[in-house]
C-alpha cells in the first residue's frame, strides 16, 4: 500500500468504535524514554493516545531541537494486534502490517506507519465532526 492511498472512510458507527477509549485490561503498554527520566511505562487507551504518543518520533529526525527530546516505544506487532482485535479496525491493522519490515529499524518502521495512523485518526475525527 502506498502512503498516498487512503483507507476508505469509516462509517460513523465504525469511527465511534475505533475512537473509543478501551478499558484497563485492553490497554496497550508503551514506554517513553528520555534522558532525565529514563524509561517510563505508559498506558495507551485509545487511537488518540497512540497518535499523540508517537508524535514525539514524527519525522525522519525525531531529535531536532524543536521536537520533544526522547523516544517513544511500542511493540509494533503488539500494536497491529491491538488495532485489529481491540479497536476492531482490521483495515488499519492490515495497512500497518503490510508496511512493517522485519529487517528495518524501529524508527524506520514507525515512520512508515505513522502517516497511516494519522490519516485514520483524522478520518475518524472528520466523520465524527470532531475538531
Amino acid at each position, binding site marked *: 500500500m502506498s502512503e498516498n492511498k487512503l483507507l476508505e472512510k469509516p462509517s460513523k458507527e465504525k469511527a465511534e468504535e475505533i475512537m473509543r477509549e478501551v*478499558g*484497563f485490561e485492553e*490497554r496497550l*503498554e508503551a*514506554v*517513553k*524514554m*528520555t*534522558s*532525565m*527520566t*529514563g*524509561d*517510563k*511505562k*505508559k*498506558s495507551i*487507551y485509545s487511537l488518540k493516545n497512540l497518535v*499523540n*504518543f508517537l508524535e514525539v518520533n514524527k519525522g525522519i*529526525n525525531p*531529535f*531536532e*531541537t*524543536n*521536537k*520533544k*527530546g*526522547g*523516544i517513544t*516505544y511500542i*511493540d509494533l506487532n503488539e500494536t497491529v494486534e491491538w488495532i485489529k482485535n481491540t479497536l476492531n479496525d482490521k483495515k488499519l491493522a492490515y495497512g500497518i502490517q503490510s508496511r512493517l519490515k522485519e529487517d*528495518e*529499524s*524501529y*524508527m*524506520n518502521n514507525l515512520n512508515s506507519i505513522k502517516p497511516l495512523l494519522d490519516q485514520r485518526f483524522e478520518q475518524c475525527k472528520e466523520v465524527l465532526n470532531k475538531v
Partner: protein
Amino acid sequence: MNGYMGKILRLDLTNKQKKTISTSDYEEFLGGHGIGSAIFFDAVKDKTISPFNPKNVITLMTSPLSGTLAPSAGGRTEVQGLGPQPYPTEWFTRSNFGGRFSAMLKYAGYDGIVIEGKADKPTWINIVNEDVVFEDADGLWGMDTYSTQEEIWKEVSGNPSNSPEDREWYQKDRGRDDGRTTQKPAVVAIGPSGEKKSRIGALIHEAGNAAGQGGFGGVFGSKNLKAISVLGTNSIEVADPNALMKAREWIHENYEYDEEDPECEHPLDYGSFPGFSFITDAPGSGMGFWPKVEPARPQGCLSCPKNCRMRTESGYGSESICVEVVMYGGQSPKERYKSANLAQRHGINVYPISTTGHKYLYDLYKQGFLGENGEVETDLPFEKYGEMEFIRALLNKISSREGIGDDLSEGVVRAAEKWGRLEQDLSSGLLQRPNWGYPQHYDPRIEVNWPYGSILGSRDINEHGFNWDIHWIPQVSTMLGLDPVFDAEEVVDNVSNAVVPFEGNKSMFDFGEDNIYSKDMVKTIAWQRYYSRSWKQSVQYCDWFFPNFHNPSNSPTNQGFTPEAEPKFFNAVTGRNISFKDGMNIGKRIWNLDRSIWALQGRHRDMEKFADYVYEVPKKAPYFVSSKQNGEWKWENGKGRTLDRDKFESWKDRYYEFEGWNTETGRPTRGNLEELDLGYVADELEEKDKI
C-alpha cells in the same frame, strides 16, 4: 584553607539563637555532603527520630568551589537530614539544587547553614553578610514559591518594586565600602505543599532550581520555616588564581563546545539530541526537551559553561530542566511549560507524581478503583486527563491536602499502601517503584549500577556518569537504525581508563546478564559510590558535567577529562594538593559514615531488596548497554531480562565483603570504620548495638 569562608552558621529556630561552627573542624570531609553528614552525625543524638521532629537537623552546605570559576561547581547546594520521602523507612538522605544560593552564602561569609528546632510561628531567615535575622513570615505563609521570593527581594532591598526600571542598590542604606550590590538576594523557599508537611514538598530557589528528593520542603514546613534569604558582598580567596584560570582554559579548549557554533555541536548529523549534547556539552542541551515555541536563550548555574537550561520570552517554564519538563505530556507545548511552572510554584517535588505517578492514578481510575464512584472516591477530573485541567486539579489537591490530595501529599507509594494496593501493584509493576518508594529511573534489571547504588543508599541515586556512555550512546543510534556512533570497545576503553583506582578494568562495564552479579560489578558500584560522595556531592561538580569519560570534543581519542579535572580545580582553589585517588578515599570514608547513620536507623541487609516486579516481570522494551560477548565488546539489548533474586543476594555478599561490612547484617564493622579513621562512629554503633 582557601576556598572556605571559615565558618558555618548554626541556627536554632526554637530559641531564635544563632552561632557559628568552625569549618576547619570538618574540612577533612571536603565540603557539601561530607561536611553535612559529619555535622548531622555529631548534632543528632537519636537518629531514629521522625523527620518532622524538631530535633531533626537539616544542613545546606556549599563546596570550597562554590562561588568560584570552577566549571559546574560554582552554584550547587547540598541538602541533608532525615527525609520523610523514603519508604518504608525515613532515611537520612540528601538532595541538591543549582542556581547561585551557595555562591551567595559564601559571599555572605558562610560555608553552610545548619538548621535545628522549630519556630513557634512562621519564620524566614534574612542573612546579609554578618547580619542574621529571624523574620516574621506570617505575611508569606500560604504564598507560592515565586511570590515568596519576590516579596523577600523587595523586603531586603527596601525597593517597593522588582521592575528593572525601579531597580536600585540592594542594601542601599549601606555605604559602598560596607557592601552594596546590585544582586538580588538568593532565596530558597517552600510553597504551600511544604507548609502542609508534604512528604513530596520541595525547596525551590529562583524559577526552577529545586531540591526535590527527600521531602525537605515538608521538613522546612514542620519547622515553620518558609524561606532563607542570603545576600553577600564578600569575596572568596582562591589559593592560586592563575592555576584556576589555566584550568578553566584547559577544559574549555579541549573538552567544551565550539562557541562559534554553540547550538549544533554534536558528533553526527542527528540534530541536537540531548543525549549527545550531554556528551559534547553543547549549551542549552536541556532545551531539546522543550518544544521551542517562543524565543529562548540558554541559562545556567553560576560558573557553569554548560548552560543546560533556558529562559523563555514568556517566562513560563524558565530555568526548568529536569523531570518537571516532561512531568505531564500530551498537552500543548505552552501547557507543558505552564504545568512545570505550576509545580514549581506549589513547591512540589514532581518526580514522584510525574509519569509513573499520574499514569498510575489514571490506570486505577480505568480499573474503577479511583473516581467519583470508585473504591476511593475522588472528584479529580480524570475525563480531562492529558489536559491542563487535570494536572492543575491534581497539583492543587496535593498542595492543599484537599480530598485525595491528603493521601497523595504523603507520596503515591504511601497512598497506595493506605488504599491496600501497594503489594499487588509493586508486584505487577503497575507501580514502578523499585527502591525506597522512589520512581524507576533507569532500568533496574539491566543497567544495574543505578538500582544497586540506590538500594545500598537512601534514594534513587540520580547519577548519570556511566549512563550517558554505556546506555544512551547505543540506545539512540540503535533505535534510529543507524550504526552506533561510537563502538562499544572504544567507549568502554575510555570509561575504564578513567576509573581510578580501578583503572583498566574493562569488565566493570560488562552489563551482560551474568556479569551484573560479578566482583567486577562490585567495583563499579564502589567506584560510583565513592566518586559521588566526594567529587560530585561534596566538591559538588554537577552530575550533568562530571564525571566525563568519553568526550568527542577531545579528538582523536575522545577521552574525557576525568580523572584529571576533579583535583585540578579543587587544588587551585584550596591550595591543597590532593590526588583524584585521595578524593576517592575521602568518598569511601563519607560513604561509610552515611552507611553507619543508616545502621543507627535500623538498616539491615534484609531491607535491601527491590520491589517484586524487578525480579518477576521481564523488561518489555529494547534497552542497550555495553557487554562483552564471545570475547568482543558489543552493545547488547537487555530486552526480556529480569533480575535474579538469589544471584543479587549473592552479589550483596560480595559487595559487603569488599567494603569490610558484616555480611549477615550489611552494617559496617569496627575494623573497617577504624581503618577509615571513623572509630568514634564505631563507638556509637556499638553503644546502640548496631555493629
